[in-house]
């Protein structure tokens, strides 16, 4: 099962994946194994995107198939009392004054697949709300997204509030969006930056490893 399910996802055969998940569940196969096969598929799709073999449309499609599959799997996972491995807790949002979220949403899908528990606060999120959520979740990563140059100020505000809350040493900050670069990262006081969802995931994983 697992190999064909992985291949079907990599080939983005939506109906094929969903039928295979249903058929595996009906045959009484372990939901955890099914999930691992799907996750492996997502990893391969991510790698192909990183290698420029796949494009953003492919990532979107694969994430959608994964989400649909999870809807089928969740009852069985709950029944098996599977506790998913969590490699980090991240709070993320598009910062105040900015409403763009396509890139953030893809990054969130990739991070969840990689094992992060993610609280996505959506768009136009004030700094205090982001920091309050970090406290509430006990998160070790704060993700800040934005594509307007004005967003730099909102990102910097969030980092400043994090410092004031005495959390800066415990929480890594990653920023993302088309215009972000090294200089932007320095001005905001973030730990990592990316203008690409897949590259952002690699940087997130590296951040958590050293955290």
């Amino acid at each position, binding site marked *: 099962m697992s190999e064909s399910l992985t291949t079907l996802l990599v080939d983005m055969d939506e109906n094929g994946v969903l039928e295979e998940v249903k058929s595996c569940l009906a045959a009484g196969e372990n939901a955890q194994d099914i999930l691992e096969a799907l996750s492996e598929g997502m990893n391969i799709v991510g790698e192909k995107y990183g290698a420029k073999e796949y494009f953003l*449309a*492919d990532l979107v499609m694969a994430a959608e198939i994964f989400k649909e599959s999870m809807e089928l799997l969740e009852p069985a996972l709950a029944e098996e009392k599977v506790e998913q491995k969590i490699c980090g807790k991240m709070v993320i949002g598009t910062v105040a*004054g900015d*409403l763009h979220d396509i890139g953030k*949403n893809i990054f969130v899908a990739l991070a969840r697949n990689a094992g992060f528990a993610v609280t996505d606060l959506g768009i136009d999120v004030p700094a205090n709300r982001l920091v309050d959520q970090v406290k509430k979740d006990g998160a070790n990563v704060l993700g800040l997204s934005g594509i*307007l*140059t*004005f967003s730099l100020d909102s990102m910097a505000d969030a980092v400043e509030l994090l410092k004031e809350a005495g959390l800066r040493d415990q929480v890594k900050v990653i920023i993302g969006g088309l215009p972000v670069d090294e200089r*932007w990262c320095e001005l905001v006081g973030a730990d990592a930056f990316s203008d690409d969802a897949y590259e952002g995931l690699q940087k997130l994983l590296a951040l958590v490893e050293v955290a």
Partner: protein
Amino acid sequence: MMAEMTAIERVDKHINLEEPDRVGIAPMGEFYYAQLVNMSIADFLMDPARTDEAFEYGFKKHGGFDMAETGFLMASYMSPAPDGFSTFYLDWHLPGRERDPYAIPNLNERAKEDPVMTEKDYDVVLKHGFHRLFSFRRAGVADLGLLASLGPKVGPIARKWWEEYQVPTMIDGGFGQPVGVLARMRGITNFLLDLRRRPEKMLEVMDVVCDGLIAYSLNQAEMLHARTLILGAGTAADFISPQMFEKFVLPFLVRCAHAAVEAGYRLQYHFDTNWTPMLHYLKELPPRSGYLHLDERTDIVAAKKVLGDHLCLFGNLKPALFRFGTEEEVERRVKEIIDGCAAGGGLIISAELTADSRFELVDKMVQTTKTYGVY
């Protein structure tokens, strides 16, 4: 050194891929000019006369550019057609309305589950035509009145720049194309899924939408007395594979471009993100038909090699450079672009400035082009 040309003569030469007196310079400033005169973005946006007042101040303060901005922008927010930009359909948050008067417009990209256009609308388009999507669902009487007042104001401003100041206008009308419109109306995620799930139906829909957009765009251009229309790629180069680009984007892009050119318009091909691996496709656009805006993510020297005998190149400086950079960095980048792309003509230096760009950095781009870019 040849005699100094007017901006019209200079831009014409560049578009025809001939060497004029110097490289062109035409910042895409929009709200940057409002900031220079401390005008609210709301005032700048809602009244073409105020837009022109702010632009003319910036134009003179920088010692002149080779293209003028004419205040047509609000007309595109007020477009009655679902052309991918209109606030009549899309959830724009505009200054002085949903946002602070000094804030820039911001598009709320609707949730995947709540698109402006539903899957059923595809059937409506196929059965009844593109015009059946016209709904004015978010418009009020005041907006319809505002729309009616905009056209008559933009035309005389454009004429002033062309005829009195001898400066061509940069963009004074829009040209929608199916991918851009459907991606906005369905939401990018839904649209990408639609292309995967029902490709043949999407081609049929896009065919109908393309005809409707050509008709609407040409009518709007006439109303605005436009001469240069902006035609975007509608999707980023790295969004879809080359195979999907060939199937879903290129044929419609080329069709729209030919329709505009045959009707006598010049085009700004507005292609953001990295087009470097896909530049060869742009050879299919009508030659010498306008100028190709490329942002900093495309390798403009590679573009010169591929398209140097086909289209004038425009842009390529990173917008954030004008807020966070230094004068030395701006000067260095302008010189690099000129060194790599100026030979033979067909180069206009530009950047899409953000409202918070710094005057001295913009000025460095303008003055470096004017001095270093002399042929």
